[in-house]
């Protein structure tokens, strides 16, 4: 029994900020790299077989690495443009960070740029030691899944508190087990 990619995987990454599709890069018998896509669906045999060869954590790490390369290329290109056109003038943090503040305070779920930044934030959170090295309890798994599916930066930051050791946050659920919020105590 096999899939096209069985024992031939070169890379696996998410292909969108929603984390609902993965791209498997595999090498065929002619040494040609092929792309193979799968919906993230834990009821699908093929996706579960993929998780037998890799893991959510590994896919997140690989996605982050791929995005870092693209982001660095963009950063370099922007820096060259900014230096060329004299954009680097001010040092006022309020002015410089306006866009960042807006992202957290007025996240726009329809904006491609915001969705991409949200995706990057998720990857960044999964890179944190306390998340990466967290225990395998149901609580940690639930929080990780919720971060994966979070629809705003505030949700992500609230869920991140679950992994903090001092005054840990509490996940709150409804009768059907759906997460309704996170109680975050002040230190």
């Amino acid at each position: 029994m096999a899939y096209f990619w069985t024992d031939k995987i070169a890379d696996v990454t998410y292909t969108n900020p929603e984390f609902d599709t993965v791209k498997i890069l595999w090498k065929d018998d002619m040494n040609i790299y092929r792309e193979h896509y799968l919906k993230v669906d834990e009821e699908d045999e093929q996706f579960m077989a993929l998780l037998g060869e890799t893991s959510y954590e590994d896919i997140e790490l690989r996605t982050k690495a791929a995005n870092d390369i693209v982001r660095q290329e963009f950063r370099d290109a922007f820096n060259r443009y900014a230096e060329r056109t004299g954009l680097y003038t001010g040092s006022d943090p309020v002015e410089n960070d306006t866009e960042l503040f807006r992202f957290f305070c007025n996240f726009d779920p329809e904006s491609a740029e915001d969705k991409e930044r949200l995706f990057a934030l998720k990857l960044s959170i999964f890179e944190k030691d306390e998340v990466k090295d967290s225990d395998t309890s149901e609580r940690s798994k639930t929080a990780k899944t919720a971060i994966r599916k979070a629809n705003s930066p505030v949700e992500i930051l609230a869920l991140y508190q679950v992994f903090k050791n001092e005054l840990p946050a509490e996940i709150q659920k409804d009768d059907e087990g759906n997460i309704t919020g996170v109680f975050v105590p002040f230190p």
Partner: protein
Amino acid sequence: MTVRTPIYYDGTDIVEMNATQITEWKQYIAYLYGTDPSVTVTVVASSGTLSPTMADTRLQAGAAITGEASAFPAEATTAEPSTVTVNYDKVTGPTYNTALSATADTNNVAFPAYYDGSDIVAMSLADYLDTFIYATLTGMVSASESAATNGTYTISTAASVANYTEVSGSSTPIFIDTRADTTLYTAAGIPETVDQPTTITSYYLQRRSDARSFPSQALLLVDTSGNLNQVDLTSDTSSFNAILKNDIRHYAAEDTAGNKLSYNIDGAGNSRGSAMVDTRLDGSGNYQTLQVGLDDYRAQEFPDGSPQTISTYTFKITQV
């Protein structure tokens, strides 16, 4: 459901088949099915019946503004990149061949023998179906593909794949994911052609078509005199193998007990091969300018951004 363990003659004794030997038979039955599938999916030019229509979307540049006399047209006045949509509707099916009839259990000796704990007896029709036909059909709808899924369909990103036959016969993709080719848009070229796509991935419908491999051990049939006879191992058209082929084809297309094969896109069942994705750049426009003469200032917004998956279409196989 009663799955029996068939018996065979090992040269000395009559013994029960092991799991590997039974698997060989199921793979052979799948092979027989694959030589002439009764549930088919085909590639058509348009108006395929396997819903939904799959949309490939891509960005195209906004229309250029040219001939401004004194200054470049402002970014706010240039047309934004827009989305081009190409719909793919090239798969028809599943189509069922319902011209076949099930094999009857004549004289209660039509089907292979097994040991019932005290005697060697022929399987009933129900036992035979559970042991060979339904078990093979269940294996055929697995997401994981092998000789046991012969005759069923999958999606590949290569036109030619070992152990598969490309269904259109002419390497016709059933879906093509395209994106704007940003390398083709240059300021010097303003006004650029607005739609300049490049193909990212083509997807092909394939049918599993492994070469034949005969089982290593012959099944035994009881005849009307009570004798045991070995079925022919080396001919697809021997009387019992012809029965197997007829029945796997019949029940695949007409079973009423939930074993009939079916295909869909994004419905129930196991994914087959690669999902088909529509990707698109997510930028809001790359504003570029060009001054051609003293009184010809130009501007245009080109596609830009990172590729994102917009839609994912999954081809699935199931039993109904």
